[in-house]
């Protein structure tokens, strides 16, 4: 009986391993306050709470990519350095999503510039080919990201957040830091470009059953 009692108590009052450990604040507002106060545990708690979400956003935008973990690292370093600029602490998750999107965008643009620079002299060439991605991707997924690679960067991001991440239009707009109207225009162009380029991808033809259909959000 005593054992059961103590077990019940232990469940109610879990023992902490370290006395210096800050119990994880349940709300984002308080986590932000702890981060701003530079509490030693706050960065760990931020990572533990949001790293899976951040990685998922990055994977949606980038596709199978060997640099995802580096990007996750960059997102959290940026977040920890700029947490004082977060206006509404309750919007912590949306803010991290935005940082993830902008981090991915910067990386994609660097690669695009790298592709252009390949026409320059050897001494000015960017980094070598990337190693293979972390996981095997199906033909359909590879085809989707081949097509997305060919899109304008902002269109690619809007498309990935809307159709792969399944975000609402307002979420896509907030994550990209632009207005709803801008994101609708961007998505309309992205759909047209994607469907046009997807015609060269046999793995996508069944999925799209391509035809002359107006894009979501109206005409570009």
């Amino acid at each position, binding site marked *: 009986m005593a054992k059961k009692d103590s077990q019940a108590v232990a469940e109610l009052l879990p023992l902490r391993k370290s006395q210096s450990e800050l119990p994880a604040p349940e709300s984002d507002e308080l986590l932000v306050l702890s981060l701003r106060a530079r509490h030693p545990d706050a960065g760990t708690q931020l990572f533990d709470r949001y790293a*899976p979400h951040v990685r998922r956003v990055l994977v949606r935008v980038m596709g199978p990519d060997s640099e995802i973990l580096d990007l996750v690292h960059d997102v959290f370093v940026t977040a920890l350095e700029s947490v004082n600029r977060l206006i509404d602490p309750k919007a912590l998750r949306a803010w991290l999503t935005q940082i993830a999107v902008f981090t991915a965008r910067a990386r994609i643009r660097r690669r695009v510039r790298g592709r252009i620079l390949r026409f320059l002299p050897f001494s000015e060439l960017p980094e070598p080919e990337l190693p293979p991605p972390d996981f095997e991707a199906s033909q359909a997924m590879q085809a989707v990201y081949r097509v997305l690679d060919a899109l304008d960067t902002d269109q690619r991001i809007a498309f990935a957040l809307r159709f792969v991440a399944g975000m609402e239009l307002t979420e896509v707009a907030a994550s990209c830091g*632009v207005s709803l109207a801008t994101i609708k225009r961007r998505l309309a162009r992205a759909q047209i470009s994607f469907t046009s380029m997807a015609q060269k991808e046999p793995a996508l033809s069944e999925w799209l059953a391509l035809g002359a259909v107006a894009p979501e959000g109206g005409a570009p």
Partner: protein
Amino acid sequence: MNALAERLQRLGREVAAEQDRALSQDLSLGSVRARVIAQPVRRPLRIKLWASAAVLAAAAAGIAVYGFSRPRAPLAASFGDHPLAVGEWVSATEPGTPHIRFSDGSEVALSPGSRARLATLDSVGAHLVLESGAADVRVTPNHGARYRVSLGPFAVDVTGTRFDVGFRPSDELFTLTLHEGKVVVSGCVLGEGRTLLAGESLSASCRAGHFEISALGAETGGGASAAVAPPPAPSAEPVPGEQLLADPMGDSEGAHNGGQPHDQAPAVVVPSWQGLSGQGRFADAYAVIALDGFEAAVSRASVTELALLGDTARFAGKPADALTAYQALRSRGAGTAAAKQAAFSIARVHFDQRAAYAEAARWFRTYLAEQPGGPLAREAQGRLMESLSRAGDRVAARKVAEQYLAQYPHGPHERVARQLLAR
């Protein structure tokens, strides 16, 4: 949604599902976690430049000041003829009670029935905790003077001024009338701080979630009075056109900055730890307390708040801090019912969270000695028996078991007691 968008979403969902399957088998985030935590947080260059300028300016100012002045001696405080030491309580029992006087000329006149404690005293000022009642505070405007008066969840920071202040714990009503100078009042519905100027008065209630600033002599609700809603709660939805987020990377085309100066933390309403604790959000409440440090919270807490502080720390899984608060309650509120009950709480911390059973037994005994017919006496007796048993003192445990069965034959620890006696 049109047909094409639906097909794209189906394709996207399939891609996402495949990605999630791959991610669920990938545990490599741990290595990134270690790198992120090991990474020192850099401040932006702009801040470094400002900081450098500030350091140089401070150094120059320091050199100049050092040349003309020597470190100031700590202030002294007295209550009538009695020198007042840090940590001492004083109470005003009747009109004409002596004032609390400080050696820089500042003084605090307590109204009858008021109770205050000198929490800290240094060379530039003092921290006075007014547990209940009212006081007339006059702070001599010396260069660099810094006084703080805490009243329940409110705090008044002052450099040189005269004001009347009061606090009624029963409904957490705070009032302040400012006659001269300027003060900053913070806490609870006032968030991180509201500045009051001479000629203004403030009343605020945590419980009602409301505060009001009015001009002296103006009728409440009249033209010179302004009823003010609490600062927007962090959960407030953004109004249309208002941006939630600052541009996180600073390089976004069309990204919005929300009008905040870079590197300056936007104002955040800090919820009161008392409110969070009352809602059972103990980890959140503890996080708020930890912003200023638990020791500081203990030093400025009233007797009533000390019990809540201890409970908050206990339920947040911080036994060391819980013990600090309960011990402060035992010494500061000696003889009160709350202090007697703190003995039981201390025993629980030792038993439940530290597995220090001998110490737990000592405190359960203390509770029973102080409150033999108290509301927790039966539970204390049962847990004393358990504590002794776990501490290995079987003889004492059996003796308590016999007493327990005699007093509470069908109590919740009956079975434990019988098992002990059967061995």
